[in-house]
């Protein structure tokens, strides 16, 4: 009987481990302003500001792009301030590069009216994760690596400057 049980244990080990042992979870920070050659983004108009994203610019994504099993998490870090001293919020939308409709990704990150160039507001990664919407759609687009982001200030003033924008993505890769 002991031999039978040992065999069962071995089979459990093989079936349980074999299929998915060789996968790992990796995170990378994509510096949107650096990668797109912008010193800052001014969200001055009602249309917001659009930036192209190619995640293959990041070594971690590029090295693993054929083995991505899943996009696990996404979040942002940003430094920004209002130029007209009014409280507002910033939304970030995404779409595949092209004419697909924009989809909301970051919903209403707050920017205080007292923020200035010398004293900017920070959107932390932790805070941003709670504001993420439509994550399943984003997972599909992000696996392709190429997309566009649109940043837009709302609540009527549309006078926000973004001086740092980091897109942090966590992926699971495996063979």
């Amino acid at each position: 009987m002991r031999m039978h049980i040992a065999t069962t244990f071995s089979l459990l080990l093989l079936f349980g481990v074999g299929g998915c042992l060789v996968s790992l979870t990796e995170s990378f920070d994509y510096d949107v302003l650096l990668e797109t050659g912008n010193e800052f983004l001014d969200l001055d108009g009602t249309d917001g500001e659009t930036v192209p994203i190619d995640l293959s610019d990041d070594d971690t994504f590029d090295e693993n792009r054929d083995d991505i099993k899943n996009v696990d998490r996404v979040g942002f870090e940003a430094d920004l301030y209002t130029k007209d001293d009014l409280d507002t919020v910033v939304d970030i939308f995404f779409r595949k590069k092209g004419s697909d409709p924009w989809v909301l990704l970051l919903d209403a990150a707050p920017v205080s009216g007292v923020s200035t160039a010398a004293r900017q507001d920070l959107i932390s990664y932790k805070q941003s994760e709670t504001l993420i919407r439509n994550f399943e759609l984003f997972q599909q687009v992000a696996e392709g690596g190429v997309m566009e982001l649109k940043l837009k200030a709302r609540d009527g003033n549309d006078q926000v400057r973004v001086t740092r924008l980091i897109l942090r993505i966590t992926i699971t890769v495996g063979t």
Partner: protein
Amino acid sequence: MKRNGLAVGVLLLVLCATATNASAERFAIGAYGGYQWPIVQDDAEPGGLFGLKAKINLAPALDLEPNVTWINNGDTETSSGGEVPAPEVISYALNANLKFGGMLQITAGLGWSSVDLPITGSQNKFSFNAGLALEIPVGPVVIDISPRFLLINTESGASRKHGLLMAGLNLWF
């Protein structure tokens, strides 16, 4: 998540009562703590663990062990030092422990784990664990030391993996 933990606690008590009625000195309850290491997970650092288990002696060489383990992953940081909250994990498993003479056992189990991320919320995933167990009798209790490997199946054949080192006390009835 707390409701799941409560349900498992009730299940352990029911198993305790059932086993106690069925046969004397063939059932144990135990609690354990320890440390765990996420394996190749960029968004989780090592941290503590805590758990509860029951043991049912089915045969001289075989115990059945339902258990629940709360895994406390440590937070990580972005490249600029911002906090990245680690996933919260609770693992539920039913293990079989095979005794190899003396105090040494090998153990393997199946179950599910709830992996809680801020974006996706808590999601239940199939999980598997295997390892060793050492039961050292000390008076009325048994010291139970068990290193284990936990594999949580996530998406598309991918997984999150943890190395667990558990130590606790079991009380046999």
